[in-house]
């Protein structure tokens, strides 16, 4: 187990290196200039933008820039943003808590929906409940988050005036009012992300439960007179959730991707909106930093999924 872990971690190093080369290459080849605002302003002489480019090393050859970046990165220096002249690591750390809070809450919401609904639908297949749940899941799964986000804004903010649609990090006030304000503004982004993910997982949980419920040992359990509740919770759900756990871990990176759009719609100041702003401003160090964090997350969650799978299912062994 430990050897397996070490081997996987060692394998992650060349993967990350490869990812960083590809990312850097694409960014360097992509058009755009962080100082184009200056260049198109007639009252600023072109030499100003040129001097800034030279100072920030933007005119060096691509490979040289990459090695500079890599060397700094190995020292723990993520570089600094061209747009705000602040260290990238500081920017990311500033944004990360919000993203984690919103994504974490939405994932919990998704699980709270997916597991009970999926299990109930799975043990009573083709019942009216299952029909309705499956249809709703299909709809929720098919609607992209940017669409549901806009529909939510139109419905709950514009028409009903229930919820604000601009997310604020610093809300004045204290005590209950403060928490309530946080909850109110977070409801929509969390619901949009959570419902989408929940719908996808509901289908999966249902299929998994359906598979397990047909197995012989479940019939045996029933035959020996165990109550239905015990059969479901102890015998069916436990085994059915093994693939679900890995699915949840594996879909984490996708959730981060989906959060980018949701963050933009609701102005949630997370790393997703940081990434979009950086891309629009051609702020290479920030784009590199954020995408690198995403890359690490993908590798990390893949590893977690594999480890969890083995832990939950002792038939799997690591070599």
């Amino acid at each position, binding site marked *: 187990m430990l050897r397996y872990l070490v081997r996987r971690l060692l394998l992650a190093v060349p993967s990350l290196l490869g990812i960083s080369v590809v990312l850097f290459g694409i960014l360097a080849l992509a*058009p*755009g*200039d*962080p*100082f*184009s*605002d*200056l*260049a*198109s*302003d*007639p*009252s*600023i*002489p*072109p030499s*100003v*933008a*040129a*001097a*800034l480019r030279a*100072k*920030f090393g933007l005119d060096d050859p691509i490979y040289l820039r990459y090695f500079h970046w890599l060397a700094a990165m190995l020292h723990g220096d993520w570089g*600094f*943003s061209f*747009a*705000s*002249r*602040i260290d990238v690591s500081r*920017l990311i750390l*500033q*944004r990360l808590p919000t993203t984690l809070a919103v994504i974490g809450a939405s994932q919990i919401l998704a699980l709270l929906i997916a597991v009970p609904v999926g299990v109930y639908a799975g043990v009573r297949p083709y019942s009216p409940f299952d029909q309705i749940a499956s249809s709703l899941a299909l709809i929720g799964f098919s609607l992209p988050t940017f669409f549901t986000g806009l529909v939510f*804004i139109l419905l709950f*903010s*514009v028409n009903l*005036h229930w919820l*604000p*649609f*601009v997310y*604020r*990090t*610093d809300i*004045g006030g204290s005590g209950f009012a403060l928490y309530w304000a946080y909850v109110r503004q977070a409801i929509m982004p969390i619901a949009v992300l959570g419902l989408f993910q929940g719908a996808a997982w509901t289908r999966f949980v249902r299929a998994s439960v359906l598979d397990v419920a047909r197995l012989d040992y479940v019939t045996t359990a029933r035959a020996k007179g165990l109550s239905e509740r015990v059969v479901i919770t102890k015998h069916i759900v436990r085994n059915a959730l093994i693939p679900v756990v890995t699915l949840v871990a594996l879909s984490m990176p996708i959730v981060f991707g989906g959060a980018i759009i949701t963050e*933009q*719609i609701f*102005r949630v*100041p997370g790393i997703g*909106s*940081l990434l979009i*702003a950086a891309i*629009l*401003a*051609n702020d290479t160090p920030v784009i590199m930093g954020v995408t690198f964090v995403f890359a690490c997350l993908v590798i990390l969650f893949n590893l977690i999924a594999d480890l969890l799978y083995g832990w939950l299912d002792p038939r799997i062994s690591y070599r």
Partner: protein
Amino acid sequence: MDERQLRRRIEEVRTGARSRRAFLREMMAFGLSAPFVAQMLAHSGVAMAASDFKYAPTKAGGGGTLKLLWWQSPTLLNPHFAVGTKDQDGSRIFYEPLASWDPDGNLVPTLAAEVPSVEAGTVDRDLNWVVWKLKQGVKWHDGQPFTTDDCVFNWEYAADPATAATTIGTYKDIKVSKVDDHTIKIDFPKPTPFWADAFVGPRGMVIPKHLFEQYKGGNSREAPANLTPVGTGPYLFVDFKPGDLVRGKLNPNYHMANRPHFDAIEMKGGGDAVSAARAVLQTGEYDFAWNMQVEDELLKRLEEGGKGHVDIFSTANIEHIELNNTDPWKEVDGERSSIKTTHPFLTDPAVRQALNLLVDKLSVEKFIYGRTGKATANFINNPQQFVSKDTSYEFNVDKAIAILEKGGWKPGGDGIREKDGVRLKLVYQTSINAPRQKNQEIVKQACQKAGIDIEIKAVPASVYFSSDVGNPDTYAKFYTDLQMFTTTMTQPDPGDFMRQFLSSEVASKDNKWQGRNITRWRSDEYDSLYHASEHETDPVKRAALFIEMNDLVIKNIVVIPVVYRPAVAAVSNKLHVLLSGWDSYIWNLHDWYADA
């Protein structure tokens, strides 16, 4: 209009026979910016007029939180590092310049005790120097006194190339010296008609010497105060999250009485223009939103929400079509559109005139921009009621056809006109942006009727407006026959703006396409007028020169102006603001107040 006529009008303004505002409008129709006209008047002895904005509150505070929504959010709060207006706006909450530009182009003293003038002896008659008297008793937010030393330091700081300030262009050629604790003198290397650049407006904000002294030059990025501004402005710094939020609270020691009205301020960023408009106009979640680049039809619908209204104010932004004077399809010495070539037919005046008649500006105004774009004939700025006689515009397909026929352009077998084997086929490019693509269609259809074939090309804005030397699709390379974009005159003086038609400014491979002259139009007459304006110290004569230059550009159809685009903001119905197109949106933030 020549110098003599100009002087007569200024005399009329002085005696009161002509209203100041009417004169201003008329001058703007000739392509002059409001601040430029105001300076010309001041130089001729007509005092700058105070704006008619009334500040109602009788005490500071009590206004609650002012909530601003900037859909592109400030990413830094050091005005000398500002990359775009968003950064300048974020800094402006805390920092102030010596003087600001109001909507009519008047200089309004902020940190200065008074605006320099020739009469007061604070502006040199020959325009070699200017003296600014600073307001006394102004304190930085940390209690330190604001003095001349701070101003001198700002000059040293910004002018040092190692600091990598984006304001270096404003400060590098001047010399700032201390006269006494509250007086500075700026010496110019040559007579400078536009003396109100350094320490004025968005590029004139002053940062405190005592906090930045250690961080001048190479380590400028490390200054803690880059993120925690300590200024002189109406609000004290509370919190800053780059790209997301700027917060401030009332400055109890502000140097203007009874100001500011709000107890706290927050500037939220991110998202898009449409939802920002919605948050102010429809749901009222925010009080003010900046730069509403939203279709007018949608704005009108949102205004029906009743929470806010749209405030439209003039700037010098012109959406215009450029005509290439060189051949974009022939490569010479590794570049296309080289000035060693000439365009096969766009240099023919008949074709230019025909194209000018084929741009249906009124339809563009009516169907695309609405209140946010006015049809214009002049290159810089033109409120419609004052169209100059020399540069009127019309849309007339028949007349265009007649001109082409007369010029010898006959329809070929497929209806496309040709002459000596040259066919009227054009490629027309612009950035990807819904209103621009509609505009391309309108022009294309009209041209088709007249026998000119137009191929439309749309380039992503991030490519089109980049200065990427390796990319053939940038606007500066201009590798097509026609192109359209908006030029902005960010500085109130047309001096820099009009450089874009100078022969010496032609964009080419040699200057990495950084030259400002993108149409590659070259005219000795224009060049000599421009050089005359550089040495002209009399503002009236200088204004006459600029008007003449504008007329040259329009008469020769170097560019076809389409619409003049004012700035648009969404404002809560409770909020009272005065917006100026010549300075930051929040140039007079200290005067903003809301009804209870």
